[in-house]
């Protein structure tokens, strides 16, 4: 199990590779000029990827104290959280606000849900047991937990809303939302255990590997959905009302006329 320890080759790979891939994705999107539909996601890939790599470099740099590193991480987490909410807003606007009849109901639903999620996240943070570690570490863990409670709730709402109204998300937004969902569900569970579970250090480290692995999978999902063109089947022929239906209606009409 030496691989599942901090500073093992796998640890280095899982911290660096997804962020390098994220920056590569940003570069390819910029080169293709295909980011016009999702500018917030493009900013997230550049800033999020860079912030994580800065945190990684600071972790390895001998001159950076532990406290300075945690402060840096909290700042990076705050920026990433804001960008993720901007990406969620982008998915929501581009998917649901194109339909006039949904704008009002979607806005009201998002406001109510956002307030409820913030309230739930605040309650969860307030009732978190005191952490025996440094205060700044506990604060970072609670910040992560709070962010992921809101993010996961919002993503669940996007998919539930789309499923109820049978709205198909555009391929790019579907991919972005799916990647975020994979990452946020795993991160929510892991940060909840880390922040509230009273776990030993080795167990915490192993759980952090789960987080890193989930983030790597999320980045691969984003790359697939944003870089690989859809197959013809996914593009789809327009649906036409089947002939059987029309004759069925006619039969029904005749039956009614003869009544």
């Amino acid at each position, binding site marked *: 199990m030496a691989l599942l320890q901090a500073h093992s080759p796998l640890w280095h790979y899982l911290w660096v590779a997804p962020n390098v891939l994220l920056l590569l994705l940003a570069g390819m999107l910029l080169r293709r000029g295909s980011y016009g539909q999702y500018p917030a996601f493009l900013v997230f890939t550049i800033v999020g990827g860079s912030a994580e790599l800065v945190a990684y470099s600071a972790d390895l740099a001998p001159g950076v104290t532990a406290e300075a590193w945690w402060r840096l991480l909290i700042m990076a987490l705050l920026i990433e959280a804001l960008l993720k909410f901007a990406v969620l807003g982008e998915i929501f606007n581009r998917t649901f606000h194109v*339909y*006039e*009849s*949904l704008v009002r*109901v979607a806005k009201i639903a998002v406001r109510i849900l956002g307030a409820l999620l913030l309230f739930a996240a605040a309650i*969860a943070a307030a*009732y*978190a*047991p005191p952490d025996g570690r440094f205060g700044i570490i506990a604060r970072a863990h609670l910040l992560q*937990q709070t962010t992921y*409670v809101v993010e*996961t*709730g919002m*993503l*669940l709402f*996007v*998919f*539930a809303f*789309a*499923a*109820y*109204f*049978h*709205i*198909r*998300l555009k391929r790019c937004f*579907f991919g972005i*939302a*799916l990647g975020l*969902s994979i990452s946020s*569900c*795993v991160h*929510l*569970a892991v940060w*909840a*255990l880390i*922040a*509230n*579970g*009273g776990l030993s250090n080795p167990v915490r480290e192993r759980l952090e590997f789960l987080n890193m692995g989930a983030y790597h999978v999320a980045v691969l999902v984003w790359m697939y959905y944003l870089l690989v063109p859809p197959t013809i089947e*996914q*593009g*789809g*022929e*327009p*649906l*036409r*009302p*089947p*002939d*059987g*239906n*029309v004759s*069925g*209606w006619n039969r*029904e*009409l005749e039956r*009614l006329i003869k009544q």
Partner: protein
Amino acid sequence: MTLAIILVVTAILCSAGIGIGVYRGAAGRESGSTIFPVDLEAFRNLIDPAESEYLRQRLPAREFRRVQRKRLQAAAAYVQTVGQNANLLVRMGQSAMNTADPAANAAAQQMVDEALQLRTNVLWATLRIRIAWVWPTSGLAATPIADSYNRLSTSAMLLGRLQTPATAVRIAIPR
């Protein structure tokens, strides 16, 4: 630890919910491709407050509640069918929105908008019918469903003509 367990269970439930959402709707996988005709007049009759009032005056209270519940069950079945039709029309409209023909695009956009409005109405109407089933003597006003369904029928016919000029598409039974 209790809070951790609650949040972990929440995360698992959310991932299951997202998985179901991904499978059922957002990825575009749908089941069923048949539009069922809906008798609007019969539906209007079922939700007509004047009809309910007439029955209330003619029948003993217990009998009225029994009859009213049966009428509400029938109305719920109509609303469910209308909702299924709206789902299919959203799919049809969304696929037609990708075509090059601007007229078909505009008709499709209008139809999707109306189908989504109808889907919202179906949600509220179902809720009201459920409440009214528990309390049959309360008033039930699901008339907006019938009106928006009529508008949707017109939009579907327009899109059908634009896509397949030889075939008119009708989702409501006229009288």
